[in-house]
């Protein structure tokens, strides 16, 4: 495995950390709710997963714990935004802050603990393919699940009735209500499910990618997930692409460092955020025409 393949393979792994919350954010935003608190969902997911994995010794239970922890933050956001009609962007940031505080306080005793991370499982046959095998099929199972999740999400959104109703909630909830459904319940469910996926992304971060827990370890990845959804114009296929681009940018930084390229580490650290910002700017025009109508009100702070 040469350095280039290594970078791309690490990019897929790092990209998966972003992919889960991005898909989660996509579900919520398609239903008309933006969740800036995705960062908080990831953070609590990262701790939840680490705690459960450390206590039970099972990384898989850890992933479930991460999903549950993310969902708790998501429930609070959904309650504030859908039931109480709170300002969506403010509510998200409030919950991020809550998550920082909670995870710092509750996580202190886990800083020095170790967990058994999810094992790498080489997919039979597929992992033997040169290039593609090393890049896509020599990872932990969460990565493979994310491949399926993308397809499943696309299918549900565009080919099923519930997907249609969900998208309608993001466009015009009053139409959904007129059709005899409860848009508030659908939005609640979408936000909570999305937040649980954010928690899984946090789990991938703490139990697989970094294999450690420390304060504020998500480092803005949840915000990047929100940006990915925006510049992907709310399409699952482009979300995947965006997440992997970020993952590769993240991996490139560490690979370059390992090869003693003499660029300051902190300037390299800024690259993924810069790449995301540039993508956000480049695709903003294209995306804005496709913004779900109801979501646009929340995003542009107009009601």
């Amino acid at each position, binding site marked *: 495995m040469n350095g280039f393949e290594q970078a791309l393979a690490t990019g897929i792994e790092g990209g998966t950390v972003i992919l889960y919350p991005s898909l989660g954010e996509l579900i919520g935003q398609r239903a008309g709710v933006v969740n*800036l608190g995705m960062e908080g969902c990831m953070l609590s997911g990262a701790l939840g997963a680490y705690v459960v994995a450390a206590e039970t010794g099972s990384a898989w239970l850890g992933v479930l714990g991460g999903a549950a922890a993310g969902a708790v933050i998501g429930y*609070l956001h959904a309650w*504030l935004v859908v*039931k*109480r*009609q*709170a*300002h969506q*962007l*403010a509510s998200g*940031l*409030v*919950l991020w*802050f*809550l998550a*920082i*505080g*909670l995870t*710092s*306080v*509750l*996580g*202190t005793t886990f800083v020095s603990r170790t967990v058994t991370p999810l094992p790498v499982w080489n997919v039979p046959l597929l992992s033997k393919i040169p290039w593609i095998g090393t890049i896509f099929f020599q990872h932990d199972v969460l990565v493979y699940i994310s491949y399926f999740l993308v397809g499943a999400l696309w299918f549900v959104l565009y080919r099923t009735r519930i997907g249609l109703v969900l998208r309608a909630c993001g466009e015009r909830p*009053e139409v*959904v*209500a*007129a059709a*005899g459904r*409860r*848009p*508030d319940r659908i939005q609640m469910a979408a936000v909570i499910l999305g937040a649980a996926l954010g928690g899984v992304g946090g789990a991938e971060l703490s139990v697989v990618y970094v294999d450690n827990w420390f*304060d*504020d370890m998500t*480092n*803005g990845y949840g*915000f*990047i997930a929100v*940006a990915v959804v*925006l510049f992907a114009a709310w399409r699952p296929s482009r979300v995947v692409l965006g997440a992997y681009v970020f993952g590769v940018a993240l991996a490139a930084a560490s690979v370059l460092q390992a090869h003693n390229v003499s660029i*300051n*580490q*902190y*300037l390299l*650290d*800024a690259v993924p*955020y*810069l790449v*995301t*910002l540039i993508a*956000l*700017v480049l695709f*903003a*025009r294209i*995306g*804005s025409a496709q913004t779900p109508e109801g979501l646009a009100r929340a*995003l*542009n*702070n*107009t*009601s």
Partner: protein
Amino acid sequence: MATDAPHIPAVTDIPPVTDIPPAPAGGPGRWSLRALADQARDASGLKRLGIALSFYLISLAIFGAIVATQHADPFSVYWAIIKSAFIQSGSIDQLLVRAVPLVLAALAVSIPARSGLVNVGGEGQLIVGAIAGTWVALYALPGAPRPIELIAMGVAAFLAGAAWGAVPGVLRVALGANESVSTLLLNFIANDILLYLLYQPWKNPLGTGQPESKPLQTAATLPGMFNGLNLGVIVVLAIAVIVYLVLRYSGWGFALRVVGGNPQAARRAGLPVKRLMVSSMAVGGGLAGVGGMLYLAGTQLQLLPGGTATFGYTAFLAAFLGRQGTIRVVLSALLFSAIAISAPGLQLGYGLDGNAVDILLALSVAAPLALSSTRRKAV
């Protein structure tokens, strides 16, 4: 619900979506959070205050419960917060000094909010302000007389913060890039630039090896006043008064409110909507930049990593607690400063993590958010 109406066609039974299905009018025994909050929607005056207070009490109870899981006595923790904020000697001074960057970064949220923009970039704008101030003090204009030095630092910090705020403003009005996300991303970029400077070009050669700049010369620090206060407190007070007057009485302030209220109408009325939006971001960012510089020159006295310690985000919450009104925002920032200065004491005295107070800050904003029952703009 209109129970006395004789017959209602089925269609009107569908709950209006922009609204919550009204709770069963809070009968006795309906003491759920939702019932309480729903009552607050129509209640006025005392009752609304009472409901708000009960939400705050619930927030405090939640914080207490979390504290209790860490084997600390909640009541003595509350007492410690109050003591460190108001009672210990010098605590008021510390509160005010800490509030310097907080107030300015909170105004950096509330001014763009007038024109309908959400600036979450206070953190980055504080950082670039501090960087610009350091650059003037150590590299561009070292050894100048104190007033000139300080004014030059302030101007540089304002310009740097204004640029850092104007960029997402321009990206929003010209390209439609969402400003809340772009300002967030710029925070992380600003922080990485700060770390780069402190680990390499600006690293103190005589330092302990920690990432820090050379200490500022005395001429580049704010003169102290009585007690532990410095000139920054006066400067911030003056800026807050000016901001209040400008937003309330100037044509610019009025135009911002029109843009924030209805951009379409503002455009038809011939207002330069885009320029107004960008200018509100620039002014807001500039003020945050000055906040970063004042904190540098008044408190830290050298550029440090994480020096602003998430002040930018705390300020964002304060701006929302104050619902973007200048006086309320300043008061909220003071309150948050009071809570924030208790963090080191809680860490030393109770073994609570330094971020524990973030829980309290978040809950104290979540309570009014839960009560704002109509979809409210950031104005």
